[in-house]
């Protein structure tokens, strides 16, 4: 009798604690508002409601989320579309479950005023992340033979302030805000989308193998994550508080103002058309353009199939 009671208690407690399929999720960078939707889905219990026991594990600067997927540390990751396409080309076939950024957030910040195109900085020193995210600027450099000296960094702020580089690449939601908060008034701040290079960035991915094995689980995770993002859109202040909880846990040097403005920018970039509710789906036009460009410059060896990348859902 005693054993039966114990078993019943276990079942009940397990149900309340959301004990279900254990999965690990890794965003592509350290904790910040860029991933607010996933944190919110976890904190609001959307994952638990879907029967998912999610662990959120952040990558390091030198070991990307794709690496974590490859080595099996993570089941679900976020990464940029270009990274996903390149990984798929190299054999780690990924499935896009959710497209959370419809536009490129890449910006070019320079000391010099009046910069309108990358070609205005031909032969100059431009900072770029050691971790990547700069493939399109590299392609532009090659395409136009600009002879840019790319300086890789982990963090662009101090290297830019020191004057060691003429300009730096940045993300609108990150450096675009951080620089200003550091008292920097850039000579020019140019969005790549304004230069004619607008393509989707962040998405939620899973390996094709995992997807085929657990399609329902993937659907549930994507749905709960989407619900998380939708909640964030309607509860921005509370969302920032959740982000700050993760920031403190991960010991990230930032502040609530930075995360607040970052969230605003991230949410704006989620919208296909400004002001409209996000679709969270991948746009095939931009996808085909990227396929062409990446193929031309050898970033991929063959076109990545849209149907394959989206798991046949689009």
């Amino acid at each position, binding site marked *: 009798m005693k054993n039966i009671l114990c078993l019943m208690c276990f079942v009940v407690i397990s149900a309340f604690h959301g004990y279900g399929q254990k999965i690990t999720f890794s965003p592509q960078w350290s904790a910040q508002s860029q991933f607010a939707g996933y944190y919110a889905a976890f904190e609001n219990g959307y994952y638990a409601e879907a029967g998912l026991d999610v662990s959120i594990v952040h990558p*390091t600067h*030198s*070991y990307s989320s794709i690496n974590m997927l490859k080595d099996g540390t993570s089941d679900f990751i976020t990464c940029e579309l270009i990274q996903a396409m390149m990984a798929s080309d190299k054999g780690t076939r990924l499935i896009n479950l959710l497209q959370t950024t419809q536009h490129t957030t890449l910006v070019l910040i320079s000391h010099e005023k009046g910069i309108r195109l990358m070609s205005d900085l031909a032969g100059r*020193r431009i900072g770029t992340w*050691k971790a990547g995210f700069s493939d399109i600027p590299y392609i532009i450099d090659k395409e136009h033979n600009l002879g840019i000296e790319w*300086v*890789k*960094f*982990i*963090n662009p*702020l*101090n*290297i830019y*302030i*020191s*004057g*060691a*580089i003429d300009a730096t690449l940045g993300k609108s939601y990150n450096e675009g*805000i951080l620089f*200003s*908060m*550091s*008292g*920097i*008034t850039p000579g020019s701040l140019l969005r790549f989308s304004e230069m004619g290079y607008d393509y989707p960035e962040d998405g939620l991915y899973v390996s094709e193998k995992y997807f085929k094995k657990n399609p329902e689980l993937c659907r549930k995770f994507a749905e709960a994550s989407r619900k998380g993002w939708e909640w964030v859109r309607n509860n921005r202040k509370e969302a920032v508080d959740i982000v700050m909880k993760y920031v403190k846990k991960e010991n990230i*040097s*930032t*502040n609530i*103002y*930075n995360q607040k*403005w970052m969230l605003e920018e991230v949410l704006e970039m989620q919208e296909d058309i400004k002001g409209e509710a996000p679709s969270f789906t991948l746009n095939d036009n931009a996808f085909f353009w990227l396929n062409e460009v990446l193929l031309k410059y050898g970033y991929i060896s063959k076109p990545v199939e849209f149907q394959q990348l989206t798991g046949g859902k689009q």
Partner: protein
Amino acid sequence: MKKTKIKFRKSISGRLMVRVLIVSAIIFTLTFAVFLRMAANKMREEAVDHAHREMSNTIHQIDAVLHAVEIAVENTAWIVPHRLASPDFMYAITERLLQNNEFVYGCAVAFEPDYFPSEGHYFSPYSFRDEKSGEIKSMQLGNDSYDYHYMDWYQIPKLLNKPYWSEPYYDEGGGEKMMTTYSKPLYDSEGKLYAIITADLSLEWLTELVGNIKVFEKSYNLMVSRNASYIVHPDHELILNETIFSSTYGDEDESLKKLQDDIVNCRAGEVLRNKEGQKFFVFYSPVETTQWVVAIVCPRSELYMEVKMLRNFLIFLGVIALLLMIAMNYNGIRKVVAPVEDFSGVAKKIANGDFTAELPLIKSQDELKELHDSFEYLQRSLVNYIAELKSTTANKERIESELRIAHNIQMGMIPKIFPPFPERDDLALSAKLVPAKEVGGDLYDFFIEDEKLYFIIGDVSGKGVPASLVMAVACRLFRSVASHLDKPEEIMSSLNDSLADGNESGMFCTSFLGILDLKNGQLKYCNAGHNAPLIIETNGRVLPMRVEPNLPLGLFEGFPYEGQEIKLEKQMKLYMFTDGINEAENNDKELFGDDRLIALLKLNASKTPAEIIDETFSEVKHHADGAEQSDDITVMCLQYY
């Protein structure tokens, strides 16, 4: 006389005091305001100087420490190129730097990738002080997880080709201490960079040093790095997490812009900032070596605390001064103004008839003395005037009395008992004379002799006593002359001659004189410039009597008056009147007029002479509507049966 109590606010002394108070208060306030403004500016200048002096001292101390680190690196760096043949010796170099410089926390000689093929891609000997034991320990710093080639302390001096102080950071292996690293690039004989030598400096002392600057009671100090991150702040949560501009992101104001500009360009200065409704002064000064900025934040209220105290003291002083002014001046003003109240009492006595009331004694030679003299003059004038008035009034009363007597005499001269001939049934006669003043110049008279009715109506030119005298003469003459003559023109000529004789004043008398033969109704008459009488016929028609104008009596002696004759039908009425009737005016100067008179008579044609006269006077009174009677009014009406 009872003295009226005047309220303070309405009294001269009260108003004078209030005015003096207001003017004094304005002068005090303006003076104090200017003084306070100057004091505030001076205090602000002193505060700025004081703050910058304190910051300058602190910055010198910081510079001294930083300089010591730079020297330590310089003194060690020269050994490196001599020992490149034995990479492991680098550990000895880093250890030696720590041994010789207690203030240095760690030291590294970080080489370019694959510089020593034997040591691999990463080679960065690093020595540091163990937190627990205090011993100097060494290790190789670089690996795949910590690619130092991309760290600021390595990359920036490499790119800049010059030594570099890193922005402060939390050292993950050093007990979460805030550190900064001084990096110096090392070049081979060909000028090619091969390594960066560094010295780490713990910044705990910095927090203490900057935190201990005490310029103002409620001020606090902070320090920001080149990227505006707080490296010293009373709220430790903000250190390396927030920048001085985080909370104002998106805001645009001049003070923020200046602060940003000064920090970026390494300039000292001060701005006034508004945070959560409170104003703060931020004084700041840069550490040139690292371009960090030391700042003192002081609530504006604190800075101006002394000014505020001074202001309160001045307000207190001002109020006391004003109160003293009131106390000292009020009695003085009261004394000056007191005679005015005495004069007021005298004025009331004068008003009540006491013209000789005693005036207050004024010894001064000022406006009050003038007022005293004026009152004295007023009293004298009033006494004289009243004496004259008494005399005049007595004379007037006497004249009025005489006029009353004259009125009675005049009224006694004309028949006033109606009907005058009650025994006769062939004649009805009535007359009425109302003088405009006590005595007048109108007249009427009648008598019967030998069955003939002699009658006259007249109007002497002018009014009052002169006219009444002429009227009296005319009446007497009519009585005495008429009884001897039987023709109206003769009577009229006789009257004219008598009146014209010695008539130097040029007065005259219009008259209508008639002799009615009561036996046959034959009327002889003569007109001397008088209004033509009206005949009221039995059928109600009213016609003016046809009269020769002739001249009024008294103008030309010997004037040949022409008589006329008419036969009165039985029941016909003869209506005679003076111009006081038709020329009676109302308030709008509108005359009663002949037409109105004729209409009146037509309306009352059937009435008796007495009734017609009453109706006439009633209608004239109604027309005058309260307007003063300007001329004597006389009406005589007879009816022959």
